[in-house]
């Protein structure tokens, strides 16, 4: 058997009260325990494959209806209603029977996000069960799990778990006597953030460069290998067995209206107890930051928080109480994104933090469309000179005139994502940029956030 991780990781997965009715534990059962991934543990301790047996007794359309009732929204970033997405898949007619695919997006590249990794590490069978149920609901015969290349050990683990499921008759031919065949394949990416974008992912899955496709056609019409395809995030698919088990209506009661269920929030940066915390949607952000994660690790005041992975515009003090769900975050001008909360204390130089993020986007731009390819590089250059004491007085206006020419004018949302941090930083911490330009040095005295001579 392939090499399975033996080195435990050392972050928080739990807190007092986790697993109670107020804070149900759906997604992180057994997290932290390296032996938890086996099929026998999943079946024995975590009600594994109960939902699948239930789903296979229902007709596919009612399974989708159940997911719709739950009002589950995609956990990959955009928050699109999952049940609705599944209904976009074409129906078979007498003349045409479609080959369809369900694809799991396990590319997890958004800085600040590290939740999908924990699901695959500790509960791979929950993801597999979710994919089989999704496969049944959309009548697919094949599913793919696209995993980022750096997670090699997780791919080995998924392969082992898939084999366990196959041996138990949950995958393969004639699943549990229904006459329906379904199987899963893992696919290893090779280091490109853009492959998290669903159409870039499909290109990569076909063995091509990970360049996003022009939409329409949407993946539900022409996806992987030209066939109708649905792409969902790991956490979205792993929530599906929970919904089938407890019922869509019950799931919808958790969280806030239109933002049902629990979600794994990852907290990183200047925090005392970094880690993953599963909370009902709509939990206030300061509860997570102060109560659960223990507040700022440096003992200083928190200056800014990025609430949903690095593409989400940053928030300052007055918005730290924001409920963490898709709608509330949107109302405050940011986004819930991938649920990665990044905490920055008052010594962080916002200019340098923004430079680091912009360098990331410039590096990861696939280069297909001009506003993103050229614009991100320009933004990086301008921020670089501001950070290094060569900023010009007109630079801030230059940035302000650049971002609207990138935002919403690109082929995929990476261009918009690049503008989020920089626009919000300029809006909320403009004085730091001005100070930098005027005094040719940092407004604060935190440690450096960038390498002196970067390789790229």
């Amino acid at each position, binding site marked *: 058997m392939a090499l399975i991780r033996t080195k435990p990781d050392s972050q928080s997965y739990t807190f007092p009260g986790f697993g109670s009715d107020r804070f149900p534990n759906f997604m992180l059962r057994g997290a932290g325990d390296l032996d938890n991934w086996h099929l026998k543990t999943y079946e024995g301790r975590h009600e594994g494959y109960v939902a699948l047996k239930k789903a296979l007794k229902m007709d596919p359309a009612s399974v989708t209806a159940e997911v719709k009732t739950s009002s589950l929204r995609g956990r990959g970033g955009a928050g699109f209603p999952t049940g609705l997405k599944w209904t976009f898949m074409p129906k078979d007619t007498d003349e045409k029977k479609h080959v369809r695919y369900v694809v799991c997006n396990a590319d997890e590249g958004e800085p600040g996000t590290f939740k999908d990794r924990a699901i695959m590490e500790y509960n791979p069978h929950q993801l597999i069960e979710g994919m089989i149920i999704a496969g049944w609901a959309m009548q697919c015969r094949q599913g793919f799990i696209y995993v980022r290349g750096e997670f090699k050990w997780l791919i080995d683990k998924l392969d082992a778990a898939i084999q366990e499921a196959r041996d138990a008759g949950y995958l393969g031919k004639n699943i549990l006597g229904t006459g329906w065949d379904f199987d899963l394949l893992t696919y290893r990416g090779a280091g490109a953030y853009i492959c998290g974008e669903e159409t870039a992912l499909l290109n990569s899955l076909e063995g091509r460069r990970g360049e996003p496709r022009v939409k329409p056609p949407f993946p539900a019409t022409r996806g992987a290998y030209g066939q109708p395809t649905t792409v969902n995030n790991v956490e979205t698919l792993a929530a599906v067995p929970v919904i089938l088990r407890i019922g869509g209506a019950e799931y919808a009661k958790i969280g806030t209206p239109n933002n049902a269920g629990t979600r794994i929030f990852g907290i990183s*940066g200047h925090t005392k107890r970094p880690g993953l915390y599963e909370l009902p949607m709509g939990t206030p952000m300061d509860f997570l930051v102060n109560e659960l994660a223990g507040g700022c690790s440096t003992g200083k005041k928190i200056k800014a928080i990025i609430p949903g992975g690095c593409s989400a515009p940053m928030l300052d003090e007055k918005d730290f109480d924001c409920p963490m769900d898709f709608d509330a975050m949107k109302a405050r001008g940011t986004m819930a994104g991938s649920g990665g909360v990044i905490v920055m204390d008052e010594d962080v130089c916002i200019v340098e933090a923004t430079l680091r993020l912009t360098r990331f986007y410039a590096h990861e731009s696939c280069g297909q469309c001009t506003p993103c390819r050229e614009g991100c590089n320009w933004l990086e250059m301008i921020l670089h000179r501001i950070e290094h004491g060569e900023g010009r007085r007109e630079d801030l206006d230059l940035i302000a005139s650049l971002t609207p020419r990138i935002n919403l004018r690109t082929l995929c949302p990476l261009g918009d994502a690049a503008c989020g941090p920089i626009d919000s930083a300029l809006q909320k911490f403009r004085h730091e940029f001005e100070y930098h330009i005027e005094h040719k040095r940092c407004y604060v005295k935190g440690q450096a956030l960038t390498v002196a001579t970067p390789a790229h």
Partner: protein
Amino acid sequence: MNHPLPPETSERPLAPGQRLAHAARTSLSESCVQEIQALATKYPDKLAATLPALYLAQADMGFAGLEAMREVARVLEIPEGHVFGVATFYTMFHQKPVGKYHLQVCTNLCCALRGGAQLFEKLRQRLAVQPGEVTADGMWSIEEVECLGSCGTGPCLQVNHEVYDEFIDDAKLDAVIEACRQGHVPEWGK
């Protein structure tokens, strides 16, 4: 995407193929060829085998240079241009040799807030190697990488394709380097 490099000299710039390092041999080992052939039927389309085949070729030859790309194209019977395009798109295919221990440090924001940039500088000084180079004894190479999905446990370090080392401080860094020196970590490509 990396922006096109300015020409190295005022003379005619090198064509992309000429910039690439050369491998010691021009063909893949017999076992690697067979593994790649087996891949061709694993996916709905043989083009889909390009990425996995490049991984195998890279492990076989040490890096995914011109020879490795040509071989993948030959064995899978797909256009060379396609393979070149793919191999140069993804950062995990290396067009020149790396050390026996290729150390990758995440310096993206969450890790930087906890000392990722300083970790990279420390590594650069301790091993006396610049990014993109390999030490004279062929042991070490270092690379600054983007988010590794270990943001809560940063700063983090990945050696070759192994499980990450997390929460790296001075003592842990010593331990990782020592483990490599002692041969407790599989070498690149093994």
